[in-house]
């Protein structure tokens, strides 16, 4: 059930330059939220008419935690909020990751700001999981994954941390076998990881991003081209309602 409310900020810190972690007291949302779902945050300045979609990074009993990068006007305003300030939010939204029935081995692949939503997922997947994380330069949240007792592999494009290259290079290098892949990150990365998964015939779930207006499925703003098996042609599904998690095989990666 979707809730629209004024949530209190219970923790807010800059975890690395320009990237913030915010914990919001929102028990109604926390109660039903699942990894891979997101919330809409409404900018305090009302000249910014649209809410900003941010994925849930951690879910506790009474709160949800998000990790976001200052990308523009809206996230800039969020970063200026203090502990105990309140902000309008709506959620949980969309369909999260489908967790495998049995304890199959999972590969979790994250790039940049695609990493935070994979934390709660990894927690639920448990031990039999390999996590591959790609950064521009300085890693963030890697310890959070470590702390789950999971194998974490790191790549950085700067070469300063872990493998010198992208998370896809990491994937090529390790070439791990698994029953399931989960990926979140930039479109090009998701495209490559999906190609890799296809090549190895491993089912893959990818979490997609698109510009949103309503965030709940009513405006058709957030289209992603999906071609279901057996369908003659693709059609636009809604990232906010039909996703953000899709099967990597069904996404039409043409753009």
């Amino acid at each position, binding site marked *: 059930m979707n809730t629209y409310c004024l949530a209190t900020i219970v923790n807010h810190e800059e975890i690395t330059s320009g990237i913030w972690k915010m914990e919001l007291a929102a028990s109604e949302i926390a109660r039903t939220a699942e990894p891979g779902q997101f919330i809409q945050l409404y900018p305090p300045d009302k000249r910014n008419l649209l*809410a900003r979609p941010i994925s849930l990074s951690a879910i506790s009993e009474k709160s949800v935690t998000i990790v976001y990068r200052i990308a523009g006007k809206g996230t800039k305003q969020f970063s200026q909020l203090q502990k105990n300030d309140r902000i309008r939010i709506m959620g949980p939204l969309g369909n999260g990751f489908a967790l495998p029935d049995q304890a199959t081995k999972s590969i979790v692949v994250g790039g940049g700001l695609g990493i935070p939503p994979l934390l709660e997922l990894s927690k639920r997947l448990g031990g039999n999981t390999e996590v591959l994380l790609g950064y521009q330069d300085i890693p963030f949240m890697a310890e959070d994954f470590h702390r789950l007792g999971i194998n974490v592999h790191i790549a950085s494009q700067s070469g300063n941390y872990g493998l010198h290259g992208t998370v896809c290079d990491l994937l090529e290098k390790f070439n791990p076998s698994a029953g399931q892949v989960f990926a979140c990150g930039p479109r090009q990365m998701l495209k490559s990881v999906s190609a890799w998964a296809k090549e190895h015939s491993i089912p893959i779930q990818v979490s997609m991003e698109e510009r949103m207006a*309503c965030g*709940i499925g009513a*405006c*058709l703003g957030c289209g992603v081209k999906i071609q279901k098996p057996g369908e003659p042609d693709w059609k636009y599904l809604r990232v906010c*309602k039909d996703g953000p998690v899709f099967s990597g095989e069904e996404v039409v990666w043409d753009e």
Partner: protein
Amino acid sequence: MNSGMETTIAGVTLKNPVTTASGTFGSGREYGELIDLNRLGAITVKGVSEEAWKGNPVPRVAETQDGLLNSIGLQNAGAKHFIENDIPFLRQYDTKIIVNICGHTLAQYCSVAEKFADCDIDLLELNISCPNVEEGGLSFGTDPHIVERVVGAVRHYAKQPLIVKLSPEVSDITEIAKAAVSGGADAISLINTLRGMKIDIHKRKPVLANKIGGYSGPGIMPVALRMVYEVCHSVDVPVIGMGGISTYEDALEFIMAGAKAVAVGTANFHNPYATVEIIDGIWRYMKENKISSLEEIRGCID
């Protein structure tokens, strides 16, 4: 049930003057998780065409200062899908159903109206802002002769009262409104979006894949209100006003300009409770100002 708020459009009585603007509210399903749809005077659904339309490339929504650009491209699953899935859903609620229809040719408009002829809906809303593929892609809604012709043709197939929704991109909106009425419109709604653009100066490209999109939200309200006022003073059929309405005060401006009903669009995106807050606000205003029927203030601007 707030008495004194009822309003009648072409014989159909809405319990209050607030409906949703087509395309911003789907068929109500999603907002129905947040608000009580029974509260609404009517639900106006996303545009429906004869067959399914795929829509435009993404990104297709973008924020501007105090407004929104969209280039959804009237994506919809077609009339058949709508009739099977959405009418039964909507009929569960105590609210009127306004079906917005669109087409790229005269024949498509007629065909979709015909498909709805025997359906259980209350009103049809004809969106004449669609690009007219037969006449070079300019909107149907900008030439009074074409307006009269398309309205006349659809009127012939439609069994429900027909609202004609006008494009604001004309020099004289009253001329278009009169053409729609002489073509057989039972009511007029306006305004549809104005075409606008925004450029991302860092990426050095337009924010919409389509470059140009429909501009809606608070930024268009002064234009919308002026046009609603002009149309209310030039035709005798009821007028549904929309364009930037976000608060009950905005809605009252349209009612004072003469609108029989108002539609809330973009405001739903920044406040999912906008419609019900507007209904409550109008009611409070009526109480505070001892207004027993909206007729007392409707069109009070001469």
